[in-house]
């Protein structure tokens, strides 16, 4: 059955047929026909953001917290260019989103028309794929393909640019089932031969470690479930990248904590000293590897990844397995169980002893203060007071982000939204809005730095308009803290432009937006203040004045290998040198 309809109507119909319930967007001349169709229906909810960058981050938050594709609708020219940061962010973190942009009419393209920009040209390097649709007859088919590409294989952002005349013209609508099946079908099953080799390595490894990443989360809940089963059954230690937190529960007995530049001491030293590294859905990012030639010198590496270009890109792999994490783990578990569930128990027990000695250093120890709130203390309290709730955490970018990763515990996947690959300040506020839209009754907290938070604070208007009770927990050190830390350590304490001056009064700002503001500066008041935030039924801006010059440790300085970490003043470093033999710089 074919149905004639306008291109604008097709857009809405295609979204409906793709199961979309929410669109984040901002109108303008080149998308007015589509907005007209949105006005005329009730199936799809449109969330009006305050800036197109916010729309894309909100869609990312929606996608990451649900596993579904996030959808954005913006106008041509400035609408499209404002979406570029969000697209790049989603590309780096493999987040599935579909961005629909309006474009000037086809007969005006190339004329420097009002609000014309070469949107597909500008976004080609920051999308997984993009399309300019010049013919209404191809529009519905293209939108269905866009969803297919966004969610298949390694997920990512796609963009469909729709000229205004294409929105007005009519053609036959094609449903998702009739749509041209794309040849784009990434391999999901891993090579059985390679999986068998990995099973053999698991059976004999003396110092194994699972190193997991965002790929586990992107693969879906089954992947996290299988990972938990595998880790618990083998008894091997597990660490994760920033992107993968929650795939294995923080309370799990094999959990070492996050690894990398600000990762835990035990996680990084275990990576350095292992003899079998099983990388599941991570990509050997430079924040993880440190200096590559010194990276985990004595290990064999297996790498499970759905993207063939991730394999051997940075680190040579001994056992490459191209496939979807859930599919590969299922086969791996089956084979390993069939082989009698063998591991080298004795050696692994000794390996755990070593790890425990590293853990004893307590690298996250910090000295609480009675006078000022230490940011670590604030997060420890936030964790204690929210742990048992249905909780989602977003962050901005900076020290607070790393502290949140270190001090908050994630028990489930899809509960941690942070900008990893691109490190986009301004991500957290709109992301928290997207998460709250998807989970109206959950507790959604954005752990923010004051500088990052100012970058997309206009989205508080969105939160208030849609009654989204997002909690903005700002660790306000009046500094671009992470920049200040690098300047202290690497640039001779020359603090060039790294302080936040002329900050707004956040409580008054909250009132101006029509939400609640809370100021807290005394550690003694902190618990009550956090409870006040949690109990308030509406959006809150929490200005938590923290120690201004706290540094984030552990830290692997630039260009150093994993075993050369800097520890904070409260970790027992003397023991570290004694027990590990590692040279601490």
């Amino acid at each position, binding site marked *: 059955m074919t149905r004639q309809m306008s291109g604008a109507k097709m857009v809405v119909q295609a979204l409906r047929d793709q199961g979309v319930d929410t669109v984040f967007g901002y109108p303008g001349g080149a998308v007015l026909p589509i907005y007209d169709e949105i006005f005329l229906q009730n199936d799809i909810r449109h969330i009006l953001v305050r800036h197109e960058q916010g729309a894309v981050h909100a869609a990312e938050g929606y996608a990451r917290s649900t596993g579904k594709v996030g959808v954005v609708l913006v106008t041509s020219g400035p609408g499209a260019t404002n979406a570029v940061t969000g697209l790049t962010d989603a590309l780096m973190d493999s987040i599935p989103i579909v961005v629909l942009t309006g474009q000037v009419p086809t007969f005006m393209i190339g004329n420097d028309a009002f609000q014309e920009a070469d949107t597909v040209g500008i976004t080609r*390097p920051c999308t997984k794929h993009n399309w300019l649709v010049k013919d209404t007859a191809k529009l519905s088919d293209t939108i269905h393909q866009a969803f297919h590409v966004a969610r298949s294989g390694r997920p990512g952002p796609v963009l469909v640019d729709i000229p205004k005349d294409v929105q007005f013209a009519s053609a036959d609508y094609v449903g998702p089932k009739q749509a041209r099946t794309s040849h784009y079908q990434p391999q999901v099953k891993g090579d059985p031969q390679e999986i068998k080799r990995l099973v053999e390595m698991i059976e004999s490894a003396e110092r194994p470690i699972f190193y997991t990443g965002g790929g586990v989360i992107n693969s879906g809940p089954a992947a996290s479930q299988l990972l938990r089963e595998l880790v618990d059954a083998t008894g091997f230690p597990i660490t994760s990248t920033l992107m993968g937190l929650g795939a294995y529960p923080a309370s799990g007995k094999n959990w070492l904590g996050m690894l990398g530049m600000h990762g835990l001491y035990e996680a990084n030293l275990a990576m350095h000293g292992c003899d079998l590294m099983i990388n599941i859905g991570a990509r050997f990012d430079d924040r993880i590897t*440190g200096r*590559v030639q010194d990276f985990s010198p004595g290990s064999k590496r297996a790498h499970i990844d759905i993207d063939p270009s991730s394999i051997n890109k940075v680190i040579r792999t001994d056992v490459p397995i191209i496939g979807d994490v859930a599919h590969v783990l299922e086969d791996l578990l089956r084979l390993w169980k069939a082989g009698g569930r063998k591991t080298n128990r004795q050696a692994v027990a000794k390996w755990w002893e070593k790890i425990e000695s590293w853990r004893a250093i307590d690298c996250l120890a910090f000295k609480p203060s009675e006078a000022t709130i230490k940011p670590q203390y604030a997060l420890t309290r936030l964790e204690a007071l929210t742990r048992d709730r249905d909780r989602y955490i977003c962050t901005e970018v900076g020290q607070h982000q790393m502290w949140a990763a270190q001090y908050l515990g994630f028990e489930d996947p899809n509960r941690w939204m942070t900008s990893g690959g691109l490190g986009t300040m301004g991500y957290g506020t709109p992301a928290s809005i997207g998460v709250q839209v998807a989970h109206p009754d959950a507790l959604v907290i954005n752990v923010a730095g004051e500088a990052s938070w100012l970058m997309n604070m206009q989205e508080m208007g969105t939160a208030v308009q849609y009654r989204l009770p997002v909690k903005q927990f700002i660790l306000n050190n009046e500094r671009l803290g992470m920049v200040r830390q690098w300047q202290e*350590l*690497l640039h001779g304490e020359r603090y060039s432009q790294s302080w936040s001056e002329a900050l707004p009064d956040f409580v008054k700002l909250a009132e101006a937006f029509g939400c609640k503001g809370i100021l807290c500066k005394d550690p003694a008041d902190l618990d009550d203040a956090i409870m006040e935030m949690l109990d308030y039924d509406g959006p809150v801006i929490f200005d938590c004045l923290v120690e201004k010059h706290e540094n984030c440790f552990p830290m692997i300085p*630039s260009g150093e290998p994993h075993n050369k970490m*800097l520890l904070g003043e409260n970790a027992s470093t003397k023991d570290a040198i004694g027990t590990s033999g590692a040279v601490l*710089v």
Partner: protein
Amino acid sequence: MSALKIKKGTSKHSAYDLRDPHAAPEETHTLAVLVDNEAGVLARVIGLFSGRGYNIESLTVAEVDHTGHRSRITVVTTGTPGVIDQIKAQLGRMVPVHEVHDLTSEGPAVERELSLFKVAGTGEKRIEALRLAEIFRANVVDSTLDSFVFEITGTPQKIDAFAELMRPLGLVEMARTGVAALSRGAA
């Protein structure tokens, strides 16, 4: 900061160093990439090379299947074996890309390039240019009393050699198509 045993401000590293000090020497490879002939596909492929810092020595493209709208892009590139593998993997995951073949490593291949040379001159030089063109099996596709346009097909090396010889004989300009290549044998 008692346990902080780094001398403040001493590190010269501004970011993690990913360079491999034992990098293998560079190789030249010819890749054949079969793509959907859709708008922007060439820009996508070229953008991949420039965006990730890969080299393009030569590049040719034309639709080879008019009903299926498939184009063949032949690209000659240089890089360490690791980089060449990355280029192939990066090309392979692009949505409009159907196949990527490394003609240099997949077995013997033939490579040809077509070019046009304009050579101007009179007297001895003109006769010498024509004589050399015959030796190189170049065709005269245009002639005036004081110029020729030669058409020559061959490997890039042969065309380079011809260009060297024509230079002192009045080479005015040349146009080269870049390499087209196919694997040898039936498959």
